[in-house]
């Protein structure tokens, strides 16, 4: 007779672990099953090259919910979030745009390109604060379905309407523009200088298959701005020890509450009886039974692979079949023998401790996108760089560095050949692009790890390598994510839940999905209302 658990969580990524920690904290007998030999899913630190620790996939933290940090006492379990203090945009002509912690210094830097932009920058920040505040409310609730007549939905809609009607008229209009416009058009309402437009618009396309001129990209800007509004919580940061540090802290918290975590345990199927989940079976054939099963994997795996899709209503299967993944990014991790020397700002300085964005202008990124539209990786991609060892010296041997490069665009589907053939050419394009700004790069390069969308899919299981478990476009957000009728963690299979990034509010290292799903499970299945 196999052991009976209250809840089995499939997948030991940060959302799965967060859900497990909350469930175990409520006293439930909880088991986490992770396919790989390491925890973290896409938030994982691995020593790929001896002595150098890479945040292999996800590389910065923006949205990790402070309430999760407090509820689970994560600092006591080893979590330290170190601030990421600045953004450098090196330019091909040897100049640069630098925005740092010193407000007036940033003002002066922006003013070198446009005095008008420097002044408008403040207005923009203030407006985004209001936008983020309005939308933050939605992130904390379960999204009501406007087409439903269920009292909970109607009530939710009413609260939502109150929230939005409470916005000032101009703020309301801006919100509508934000939901519909392209990030470039939206930003041009404030700014005119290319380095600023390019860099800001880049956060409207990160992780999506959109260009800065694609409608809908403005919303993604907001998604990346959300962390800003908590004031004292710095929005962007590194986890000490790499992003794996987040997963290991949450795992440690979960274990301290009694959760059991098993590695190398790939779930092959969710067991069901009479339309209810009853447990899981591993690829090894081992079975575990549980009252509730929750999957943190993406919808493709959660609904199409782990269960028999015929258990689902046909319209949902159809919606899931049409759900768009479209991985658009790659990752190149570098081990460096010394600090990189930027042509625009040689020597060490605060610029190496922040984000470095290869985004000299909107056209640059749009050109990079053009190539991807036709199935080629960008020959001169947009690259978002961080050098974690500059902030956390433990990431590399003394004096040496690790450099994390998020690269866009790298379409999952290539027009010619496949990624196994194109991988090194992609890596070369990244190194060549970087070398234009970092002349000493090739001399100090010890090792490069090139990850294509195919590699991301193979290693993490993220379908098509999409980092958000599905395109972060308006057509796949809120009550539509991942499909109408599936936005509430619950699934049509009784006792089967979802808690990955594809569930609401989705995307990013927030843990919000894991937490909200756990609270739902506690309420629906175990009749408990968590105080938090």
């Amino acid at each position, binding site marked *: 007779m196999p052991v009976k658990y209250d809840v089995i969580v499939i997948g030991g990524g940060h959302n799965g672990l967060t859900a497990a920690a909350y469930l175990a904290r409520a006293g439930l007998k909880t088991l986490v099953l992770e396919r790989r030999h390491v925890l973290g899913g896409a938030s994982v630190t691995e020593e790929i090259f001896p002595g150098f620790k890479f945040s292999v996939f996800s590389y910065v933290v923006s949205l990790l919910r*402070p*309430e999760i*940090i*407090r509820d689970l006492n994560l*600092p006591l379990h080893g979590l*330290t979030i*170190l*601030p990421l*203090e600045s953004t450098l945009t090196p330019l091909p002509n040897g100049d640069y745009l630098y925005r*740092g*912690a*010193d407000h007036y*210094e940033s003002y002066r830097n922006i003013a070198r390109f446009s005095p008008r932009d420097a002044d408008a920058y403040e207005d923009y920040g203030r407006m985004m604060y209001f936008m983020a*505040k309005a939308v933050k409310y939605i992130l904390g609730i379960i999204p009501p379905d406007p087409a439903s007549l269920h009292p909970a939905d109607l009530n939710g809609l009413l609260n939502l309407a109150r929230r939005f009607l409470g916005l000032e008229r101009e703020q309301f209009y801006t919100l509508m523009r934000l939901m519909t416009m392209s990030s470039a058009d939206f930003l041009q309402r404030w700014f005119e200088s290319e380095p600023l437009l390019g860099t800001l618009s880049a956060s409207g396309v990160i992780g999506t298959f959109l260009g800065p001129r694609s409608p809908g990209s403005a919303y993604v800007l907001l998604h990346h701005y959300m962390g800003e*509004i*908590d*004031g*004292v*919580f*710095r929005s962007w940061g590194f986890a*000490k020890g790499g992003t794996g540090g987040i997963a290991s802290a949450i795992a440690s918290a979960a274990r301290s509450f009694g959760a059991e975590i098993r590695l190398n345990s790939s779930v092959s199927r969710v067991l069901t009886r009479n339309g209810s989940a009853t447990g899981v079976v591993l690829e090894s054939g081992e079975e575990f039974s549980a009252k509730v099963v929750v999957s943190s994997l993406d919808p493709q795996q959660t609904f199409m692979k782990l269960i028999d899709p015929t258990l689902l209503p046909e319209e949902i299967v159809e919606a899931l079949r049409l759900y768009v993944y479209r991985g658009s990014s790659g990752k190149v991790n570098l081990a460096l023998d010394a600090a990189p020397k930027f042509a625009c700002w040689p020597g060490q300085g*605060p610029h190496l*401790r922040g984000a470095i964005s290869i985004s000299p202008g909107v056209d640059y990124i749009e050109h990079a996108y053009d190539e991807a539209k036709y199935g080629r990786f960008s020959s001169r991609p947009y690259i978002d760089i961080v050098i974690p060892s500059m*902030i*956390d*010296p433990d990431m590399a041997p*003394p*004096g040496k560095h690790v450099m994390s490069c998020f690269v866009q665009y790298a379409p999952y589907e290539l027009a010619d050949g496949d990624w196994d053939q194109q991988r090194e050419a992609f890596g070369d394009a990244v190194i060549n692009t970087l070398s234009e700004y970092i002349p000493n790069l090739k001399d100090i390069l010890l090792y490069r790890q090139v990850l294509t969308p195919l590699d991301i899919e193979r290693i993490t299981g993220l379908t098509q390598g999409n980092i958000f478990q599905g395109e972060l476009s308006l057509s796949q957000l809120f009550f539509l994510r991942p499909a109408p009728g599936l936005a509430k963690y619950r699934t049509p299979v009784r006792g089967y839940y979802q808690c990955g990034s594809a569930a609401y509010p989705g995307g990013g290292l927030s843990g919000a999905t894991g937490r909200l799903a756990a609270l739902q499970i506690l309420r629906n299945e175990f009749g408990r209302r968590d105080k938090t």
Partner: protein
Amino acid sequence: MPIPTPFHARTGAICESHEWRNWSGYLAASLYEPTHEREYYAIRNAAALIDVSPLYKYEISGPEAERLVNRIFTRDFSRCAVGQVRYTPWCDDDGKVIDDGTVARLEQNKFRVTAAEANLAWFQDCGYGMAVHVQDVTAELAALALQGPNARLILEPILQEVELKELKYYCFAEGSIRGIPLTISRTGYTGDLGYELWVSPRHALDLWDLLIERGVDFGITPAGILALDIARIEAGMIMNQVDYISSRKALIEEQKSSPFEIGLGWAVDLEKEDFVGRRALIEERRRGSAWRLVGLEVDWNDLEAVFRRWDLTPQVAGRASRSAVPIYRGNRQIGQMTSHTFSPWLKRYIGIGMARSREVREGDAVSVEVTVEYQRLRANAKIVRLPFINLPRKRA
């Protein structure tokens, strides 16, 4: 006008903020960069280099040195071996705290004391008629604190004549770094792994340069008083003239505190021979103390609710506050939160305070005053055990 410390040629050159504090008459950098965030994180993540030269330093020597030390301080120094350091308060005859600091036993008959305030006259008066010599060595000793998880890694290969792994918490040793003689103690004011280096002012700049050069690959970061203040609150360490008032400065009786009241009862040895304030302290122990030191954790959800009345998200200062605010139980004021800060590490708002000892127990629900839009309101808080951060590496 405050005067420069022996490190000023270096600290002055890198102080981008140009924000200085007057610390006991010396210029002390509040922060070096435009914000103190990175300096704070250096303490918890890598290694922070802090100029603590302004501390008052005294040497007590002579055949009756141990007798005087045991008379002044509340702890028993007959059991303090050469090479050990003790943290201790000292009191007036009424058992009210004058100051607190560390006492290192340099030799059998020689002690070195650090103090927050000037104490020369007091120490000399206590030793009247004894065969001892009390000397102010503040200007003769420059001091650097190297605090953070990488502190040992930085020092180990360059420090000679001292086996750092053997140097236990609250011990010190004499050694040298590239020929610079110094005293190194396994002490600090951060609650983290760390050391304090005591050196002649003429070697100060060389020592600074050597440490920076050696530490650069280990994240060494000069840090100012703002970062230190957050770390010491997290570590539950009190500060003279902030969390309590020295009995030599108090204007009224109510402003004075006993060691029991400021959380230092553990550092009072009533069993040892007579010391200043002993009789009063025995009496207070019998009677019970009126006040007690408390840790407070402000309920963030409630703080959010308070700010939400103005449709704001919590706006708390990034800097620690030394402005005391009232602590309430119901509508009764039962104490004051004297130091408080947002802890960047814990993501909680925390504070140290004094409360009427009969009114509070650990875990109690209280409230503290918060000001939102010029209005004084209250946010729920909980009485918690100090320290807020108790890292295993602090003692490792």
